């Protein structure tokens, strides 16, 4: 089973005060630390598990600058055989353009399965995977939590709402957007990632791909990014832990919960 897995490096924004960029259309990413998108980490693990079980190879792809190669090396340390970075230069891309560019590169690769994460932790769009499937003309499923290959088809589990899963059969080749929890991503050491440096990492310049201006023109425009108003929301309980605990117990009692 040859597998292509599309991954993205995203900023960590827990416990950080986000700042809006000078142009008001994004957040200032400079002070932020980056990691592989959580959903994509599960997708890489799934690809590697399937390769270990069924043979074949795994190609990891990202669109990004040199600093994003870190997640490709990480994917290779986990077991991907090779990786591709598509350098966007200073092109502004939306999900449509990203999926169009990925499709152009993936067309040239032999694969049975394309995996992406369900969504990225930064823009939370959840578009690239299934758009990519459509560009490639593949069968697809979103929010996948299980995969068992069975000849030229596979039995998959699709997560629906309320703890309900759907079991379906899907033709291969297909594209699946992978949901967290499908497996337990393996641990990779910093040394492992460093070693992976030497492995096969190809860089493709956007300009070298046969894409037209129309292909590269975003369908959506972010007009403004803003932070939610500070005034709305919870009444903050101030004070040291002991005082806070007293107050929490008082609220519990008031609401009829006896502790």
């Amino acid at each position, binding site marked *: 089973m040859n597998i292509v897995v599309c991954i993205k490096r995203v900023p960590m924004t827990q416990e*950080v*005060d986000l700042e809006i960029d000078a142009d008001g259309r994004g957040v200032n990413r400079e002070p932020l630390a980056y990691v592989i998108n959580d959903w994509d980490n599960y997708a890489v693990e799934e690809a590697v598990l399937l390769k270990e079980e069924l043979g074949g190879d795994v190609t990891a792809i990202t669109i990004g600058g040199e600093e994003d190669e870190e997640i490709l090396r990480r994917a290779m340390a986990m077991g991907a055989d090779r990786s591709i970075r598509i350098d966007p230069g200073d092109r502004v891309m939306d999900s449509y353009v990203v999926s169009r560019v990925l499709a152009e590169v993936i067309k040239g690769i032999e694969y049975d399965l394309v995996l992406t994460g369900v969504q990225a932790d930064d823009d939370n769009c959840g578009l690239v995977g299934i758009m990519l499937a459509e560009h490639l003309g593949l069968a697809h*499923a979103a929010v996948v939590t299980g995969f068992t290959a069975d000849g030229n088809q596979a039995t998959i589990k699709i997560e629906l*709402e*309320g703890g309900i899963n759907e079991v379906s059969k899907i033709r291969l080749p297909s594209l699946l957007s992978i949901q967290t929890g499908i497996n337990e991503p393996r641990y990779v050491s910093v040394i492992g990632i460093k070693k992976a440096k030497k492995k096969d990492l190809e860089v493709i310049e956007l300009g070298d791909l046969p894409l037209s201006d129309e292909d590269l023109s*975003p369908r959506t425009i972010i007009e403004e990014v803003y932070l939610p108003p500070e005034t709305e929301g*919870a009444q903050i309980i101030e004070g040291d832990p002991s005082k806070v*605990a007293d107050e929490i117990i008082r609220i519990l009692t008031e609401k009829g919960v006896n502790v």
Partner: protein
Amino acid sequence: MSKMGDIFVIVEHRKGEIRSITFEMLYKAGEICKALNHKLTAVLLAGKGQPFASDISKWADTVLVFEDDRFMDFDSDTYKEVINRLILQQSPFITLIGHTSWGMDLAPALSVRAGYPVATDCVDIIVEGGRPKAIRQTYGGKAFSRVSFRESPGYLITVRPGAFIPPDGAADRQANVVMMDIPSDLGPAKRDFVEFVDTAAGEVDISQAEFLVSIGRGVGEKENIDAIKDLADKMGGTLSCSRPIVDMNWLPKYHQVGTSGKSVRPKIYLALGISGAFQHVAGISGAQTVIAVNKDKKAPIFRVADYGVVDDLFSIADALKEKIKG
């Protein structure tokens, strides 16, 4: 021309029932229609004899029904094919689809197929100068963005569940129900539905609990869970959690609160180290009082909680234990 196109709502149903996201979309679409004089069309793909059309007839001006046993259960391939043709024929101004597992599989593909731009997981929709704009959240709810579209004959928007709750009396239309012809040249499905399985049932039913002590990724390590479990036991509460805790196999699935877990309605929901992503807070809308403890004063959970504590969850847990003991 596109200006006066209808507003379409794609009806979502499962196991013989219309899902609430459908009514939420019909309500929002109805508001836009009233303000701008559009017509509201519900698009229903269903199995033979599934009596959904009557359920929604008061919510739309027209219900277009495609009835075929292939449409009984959602299949993105077939649905996409039928809806794409309909859209290209009728050029609806805006087409609303739920931001649900179903919609996440349908909308992106439909957007590429039809050539209509899409914005996902929208919490509000504004129409300005004949074009829609979408308000959506990014960074797990820490920031908002306003998104506009490149000019197109029509636009697709997926709607966040729970963003538009219809008030009583919102169903004030009378629909013309139109049975549509099924395209004769639909390709063979690339996906076959097998069955539904319930993964959330288990020893403890958190949906019945009066007091939930709920942990998120902020708990840090699996080993730390025992201390919180101990706290929950001492306080007479039930332990629940956010999704990552289940993903990492730290607790069984039946503890999970949220869209893909359980909806809960306790008197008190004490959220410890949970950021407040919409998929989580959608599960606690029935809670009477939410108290959130989080180190990050900008965590989105504080926007839905009644009370907030900006502190380390373990200091608060320890202090609570001290008090209970004493």
